[in-house]
């Protein structure tokens, strides 16, 4: 029974990893830009959710606002800073976004202090329900349901809308997008904000589960990389499968070998890399 419980936990966790990784992946796909500040946006989303709840904003409001604020900040950063360095070597992308991540992390510590804090689940979802023979926290079920809906919407946005088509065309060639008559600068900003917003949302959703602390960003960044390495960059399905895989492995290991739970996901990554260097669904 405990395994079923952990499997459920793993799915919830995996869906959050998916949100993180798909944001990273979409940004990379269009901009060929690896965003080391992605974890910092996750961190910021979590803390904004925490703060908004403290100010008495309802949970739904906090969730949506946190994501929107993170996306807005990301849009400002993209227009003011990142746009200037796209043409440079990726070393400078990494330097600049590491710098950005450090700044966000330090600002979080200045505003909210260096010590972490727990975040209450919304009142309506604090209970637990019986699932067959075991009790399961409602909030975690909500996360699974909510992220599943979100994943479906994302799928539709990326595969079924004009924006998605433009993003996919853009990842092949930016000239193509310009030819189609779109302003590539605005598309870049929108996509960067979307990716960052997804990271922020993942952070906000994770806050009631794991609490908030200033160093959760680095951890999330590394996990997002693992998911992308396993799933294959630029693949929506890859991110979904790898996210779930990583979440489930991590959760099951918490029961089997608690000390090695985090270690297990990195070992899983090495195994995948050995067998399939491009990841499960990576493109050539």
């Amino acid at each position, binding site marked *: 029974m405990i395994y079923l419980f952990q499997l459920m936990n793993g799915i919830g966790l995996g869906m959050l990893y998916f949100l993180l990784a798909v944001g990273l992946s979409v940004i990379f796909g269009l901009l060929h830009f690896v965003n080391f500040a992605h974890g910092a946006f996750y961190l910021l989303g979590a803390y904004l959710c925490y703060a908004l709840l403290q100010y008495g904003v309802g949970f739904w409001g906090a969730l949506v606002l946190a994501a929107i604020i993170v996306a807005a900040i990301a849009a400002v950063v993209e227009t003011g800073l990142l746009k200037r360095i796209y043409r440079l070597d990726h070393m400078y992308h990494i330097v600049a976004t590491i710098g950005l991540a450090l700044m966000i992390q330090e600002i979080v510590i200045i505003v909210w202090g260096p010590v972490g804090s727990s975040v209450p689940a919304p009142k309506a979802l604090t209970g637990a329900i019986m699932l067959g023979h075991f009790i399961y926290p409602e909030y975690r079920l909500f996360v699974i349901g909510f992220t599943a809906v979100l994943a479906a919407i994302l799928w539709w946005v990326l595969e079924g809308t004009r924006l998605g088509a433009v993003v996919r065309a853009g990842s092949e060639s930016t000239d193509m997008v310009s030819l189609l008559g779109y302003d590539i600068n605005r598309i870049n900003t929108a996509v960067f904000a979307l990716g960052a917003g997804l990271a922020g949302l993942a952070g906000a959703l994770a806050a009631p589960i794991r609490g908030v602390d200033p160093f959760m960003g680095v951890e999330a960044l590394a996990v997002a990389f693992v998911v992308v390495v396993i799933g294959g960059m630029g693949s929506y399905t890859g991110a979904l499968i790898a996210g779930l895989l990583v979440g489930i492995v991590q959760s099951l290991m918490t029961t089997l070998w608690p000390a090695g739970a985090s270690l297990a996901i990195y070992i899983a990554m090495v195994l995948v*890399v050995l067998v399939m260097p491009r990841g499960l669904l990576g493109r050539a």
Partner: protein
Amino acid sequence: MDRPIFHFALAALVALLLPFFIRSGTLATEVLVFAIAAAGCNLLLGYTGLLSFGQGIFFGLGSYTLGLALIHTTLPLLPTLVLAMIVGSVVAIVIGALSIRRQGVYFVMLTLAFAQLFYFLAYTFSDITGGDNGLIGIPRRGIGPLALNSSWSYYGFVAVIFLISFAALQRIATSTFGRTLLAIRYNGERAQAIGFPVRAFKIAAFAVSGAVTGLAGALHALLIGIAPLSDIDYHMSESLLVMTIIGGTGNLFGSVLGAAFYLIVSDTLSAIWPRWLLLLGALLIVLALFIQKGIWGLIESGVGIVRGRRGGPDAMAPGVSGSERP
């Protein structure tokens, strides 16, 4: 000013002058230790074009190897350092071989994920590594009649190793091997097409870098008497990269400057304001935007202005002309 002997003289000058400017023997030693590690990182980044986020692995393993050897065996100090280099090198070969199967940012992500893997290995197997507390109680053995128990005598020892390592890396960088790495960095496709097995050369670069970084990690553990978990974590990899890039890539003395700048500034600022990392973050952004060649690049253009740009390409190192551009 591109002659290797001139750069070596500068490095020797730094080792000689540091004690006059820094009161703490520990900080002065740290500058040289990290200068070695940053130069090792530079061999990969500046000469081979490989941005490795896994340098902390080799550094941390160097620390643990030295700690375990000195605690559990009666090995003298120098063989222990060699052992740390071998461990660093062997692990670097494995990680390098696995990571270079992907290129560009995928390579970077892989090395970062490996860094996390080794961090959690060290964290999980705390029976061996001491986990969160670090591997404590590492004795600092002397070499024959030389006792290294004062902080300045240890500084002297590290300074000698620093200069030997620096000279060795210079020799490697200007060798046929180093020139081939540079060719791979500038145009890997062409290097392969003219007959070089590019992967093998990248792995060889990793082997050298791992050895040098492992040596630095060992010296660090010996300096502070413990092999802390922080020697192998994400931030170690990040700091080593940041030092290398701040100093200027593709120039070994730049790494010395980068390490000195990073450590001295962080030591000064962290005493004044615990949130100094905010300033470091801002500095990195400024670096990416405006100072892409790092401190060494600034010095070079400064000298160029003073000289009135008389030196043409002939003044550059033989075979290498033009300066770094992103």
